[in-house]
Protein backbone atom coordinates (compact mmCIF):
# COMPACT_ATOMS: atom_id res chain seq x y z
CA UNK A 1 0.00 0.00 0.00
CA UNK A 2 2.64 2.45 1.05
CA UNK A 3 4.63 1.61 -2.06
CA UNK A 4 1.60 2.63 -4.07
CA UNK A 5 1.51 5.95 -2.30
CA UNK A 6 5.19 6.47 -3.05
CA UNK A 7 4.45 5.64 -6.65
CA UNK A 8 1.69 8.22 -6.82
CA UNK A 9 3.88 10.83 -5.22
CA UNK A 10 6.68 10.18 -7.66
CA UNK A 11 4.36 10.52 -10.61
CA UNK A 12 2.99 13.76 -9.24
CA UNK A 13 6.54 14.99 -8.79
CA UNK A 14 7.32 14.03 -12.37
CA UNK A 15 4.47 16.06 -13.74
CA UNK A 16 5.23 19.02 -11.49
CA UNK A 17 8.88 19.10 -12.45
CA UNK A 18 8.00 18.81 -16.12
CA UNK A 19 5.66 21.76 -15.72
CA UNK A 20 8.47 23.62 -14.00
CA UNK A 21 10.68 23.02 -17.00
CA UNK A 22 7.97 24.53 -19.13
CA UNK A 23 7.38 27.41 -16.77
CA UNK A 24 10.86 28.70 -15.87
CA UNK A 25 12.15 31.51 -18.01
CA UNK A 26 15.62 31.19 -16.56
CA UNK A 27 17.22 28.44 -18.58
CA UNK A 28 19.54 27.40 -15.78
CA UNK A 29 16.56 26.88 -13.51
CA UNK A 30 14.81 24.97 -16.28
CA UNK A 31 17.84 22.75 -16.65
CA UNK A 32 17.90 22.15 -12.92
CA UNK A 33 14.24 21.24 -13.04
CA UNK A 34 15.03 18.88 -15.87
CA UNK A 35 17.71 17.36 -13.64
CA UNK A 36 15.15 16.81 -10.90
CA UNK A 37 12.85 15.39 -13.54
CA UNK A 38 15.55 12.96 -14.59
CA UNK A 39 16.16 11.87 -11.02
CA UNK A 40 12.48 11.36 -10.43
CA UNK A 41 11.97 9.40 -13.60
CA UNK A 42 14.92 7.28 -12.63
CA UNK A 43 13.24 6.64 -9.29
CA UNK A 44 10.10 5.73 -11.19
CA UNK A 45 12.03 3.19 -13.24
CA UNK A 46 13.45 1.85 -10.01
CA UNK A 47 9.97 1.46 -8.58
CA UNK A 48 8.85 -0.27 -11.76
CA UNK A 49 11.59 -2.85 -11.15
CA UNK A 50 13.94 -1.74 -13.89
CA UNK A 51 17.24 -1.13 -12.11
CA UNK A 52 19.24 -1.37 -15.32
CA UNK A 53 17.28 1.46 -16.82
CA UNK A 54 17.38 3.39 -13.57
CA UNK A 55 21.17 3.32 -13.52
CA UNK A 56 21.26 4.27 -17.15
CA UNK A 57 18.87 7.17 -16.69
CA UNK A 58 20.67 8.36 -13.57
CA UNK A 59 24.05 8.24 -15.22
CA UNK A 60 23.17 9.58 -18.62
CA UNK A 61 20.02 11.58 -18.10
CA UNK A 62 20.73 13.19 -14.80
CA UNK A 63 24.51 13.44 -14.79
CA UNK A 64 25.79 14.01 -18.29
CA UNK A 65 22.78 15.58 -19.94
CA UNK A 66 22.59 18.21 -17.24
CA UNK A 67 26.28 18.84 -17.65
CA UNK A 68 26.13 19.31 -21.39
CA UNK A 69 23.05 21.46 -21.12
CA UNK A 70 24.86 23.71 -18.69
CA UNK A 71 27.85 23.93 -20.99
CA UNK A 72 25.52 24.82 -23.84
CA UNK A 73 23.79 27.47 -21.76
CA UNK A 74 27.15 28.92 -20.88
CA UNK A 75 28.03 28.94 -24.58
CA UNK A 76 24.82 30.71 -25.49
CA UNK A 77 22.65 32.74 -23.14
CA UNK A 78 21.01 32.15 -19.82
CA UNK A 79 17.64 33.75 -20.27
CA UNK A 80 14.90 32.91 -22.67
CA UNK A 81 14.54 36.45 -23.87
CA UNK A 82 17.90 36.58 -25.60
CA UNK A 83 20.91 38.71 -24.70
CA UNK A 84 23.77 37.32 -22.68
Amino acid at each position, binding site marked *: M*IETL*IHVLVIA*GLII*SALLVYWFRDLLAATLAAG*VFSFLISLEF*YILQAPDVAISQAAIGA*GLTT*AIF*IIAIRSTSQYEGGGS
Partner: protein
Amino acid sequence: MMDYFSPVAFILVALVFLAMVRLVRGPTPADRAVAVDTVNTLMVAVLILLGVVYRQIIFIDVAIVYALLSFVSTLFIAKYIGGDL
Protein backbone atom coordinates in the same frame (compact mmCIF):
# COMPACT_ATOMS: atom_id res chain seq x y z
CA MET B 1 11.42 -5.38 10.89
CA MET B 2 10.94 -4.63 7.23
CA ASP B 3 7.83 -2.61 7.94
CA TYR B 4 9.68 0.41 9.16
CA PHE B 5 11.54 1.17 5.98
CA SER B 6 8.77 2.02 3.57
CA PRO B 7 7.07 4.74 5.67
CA VAL B 8 10.39 6.49 6.01
CA ALA B 9 10.85 6.24 2.25
CA PHE B 10 7.42 7.77 1.85
CA ILE B 11 8.35 10.64 4.15
CA LEU B 12 11.53 11.27 2.24
CA VAL B 13 9.73 11.31 -1.11
CA ALA B 14 7.27 13.77 0.32
CA LEU B 15 10.17 15.93 1.43
CA VAL B 16 11.31 16.11 -2.17
CA PHE B 17 8.22 18.19 -2.87
CA LEU B 18 9.14 20.63 -0.15
CA ALA B 19 12.60 20.91 -1.63
CA MET B 20 11.00 21.67 -4.96
CA VAL B 21 9.30 24.66 -3.36
CA ARG B 22 12.74 26.12 -2.88
CA LEU B 23 13.54 25.21 -6.47
CA VAL B 24 10.58 27.27 -7.60
CA ARG B 25 11.04 30.20 -5.27
CA GLY B 26 14.79 30.39 -4.98
CA PRO B 27 15.75 33.93 -5.85
CA THR B 28 19.26 33.08 -6.97
CA PRO B 29 20.56 30.17 -9.01
CA ALA B 30 22.59 29.10 -6.01
CA ASP B 31 19.43 28.51 -4.02
CA ARG B 32 18.11 26.32 -6.76
CA ALA B 33 21.36 24.43 -6.87
CA VAL B 34 21.10 23.82 -3.14
CA ALA B 35 17.56 22.58 -3.62
CA VAL B 36 18.66 20.17 -6.35
CA ASP B 37 21.50 18.97 -4.19
CA THR B 38 19.06 18.29 -1.39
CA VAL B 39 16.78 16.39 -3.72
CA ASN B 40 19.72 14.25 -4.76
CA THR B 41 20.63 13.46 -1.18
CA LEU B 42 17.08 12.52 -0.31
CA MET B 43 16.82 10.42 -3.40
CA VAL B 44 19.85 8.35 -2.47
CA ALA B 45 18.33 7.64 0.90
CA VAL B 46 15.05 6.68 -0.75
CA LEU B 47 16.83 4.36 -3.13
CA ILE B 48 18.65 2.59 -0.33
CA LEU B 49 15.46 2.17 1.63
CA LEU B 50 13.46 0.94 -1.35
CA GLY B 51 16.22 -1.49 -2.18
CA VAL B 52 15.69 -3.08 1.21
CA VAL B 53 11.94 -2.91 0.88
CA TYR B 54 12.07 -4.82 -2.39
CA ARG B 55 14.58 -7.28 -0.85
CA GLN B 56 16.90 -6.82 -3.77
CA ILE B 57 20.49 -6.43 -2.68
CA ILE B 58 21.63 -5.48 -6.14
CA PHE B 59 19.47 -2.37 -6.14
CA ILE B 60 21.93 -0.68 -3.79
CA ASP B 61 24.31 -0.25 -6.71
CA VAL B 62 21.88 2.22 -8.17
CA ALA B 63 22.16 4.33 -5.04
CA ILE B 64 25.95 4.40 -5.28
CA VAL B 65 25.72 5.52 -8.88
CA TYR B 66 23.30 8.24 -7.84
CA ALA B 67 25.53 9.46 -5.08
CA LEU B 68 28.46 9.68 -7.44
CA LEU B 69 26.66 11.18 -10.37
CA SER B 70 24.60 13.84 -8.72
CA PHE B 71 27.96 15.25 -7.72
CA VAL B 72 28.83 15.95 -11.34
CA SER B 73 25.80 18.06 -12.03
CA THR B 74 26.33 19.87 -8.74
CA LEU B 75 29.90 20.67 -9.70
CA PHE B 76 28.90 21.88 -13.13
CA ILE B 77 26.22 24.09 -11.66
CA ALA B 78 28.60 25.46 -9.06
CA LYS B 79 31.21 26.20 -11.67
CA TYR B 80 28.64 27.87 -13.84
CA ILE B 81 27.33 30.00 -10.98
CA GLY B 82 30.84 31.03 -10.06
CA GLY B 83 31.39 32.13 -13.63
CA ASP B 84 34.39 29.90 -14.12
CA LEU B 85 33.03 27.61 -16.77
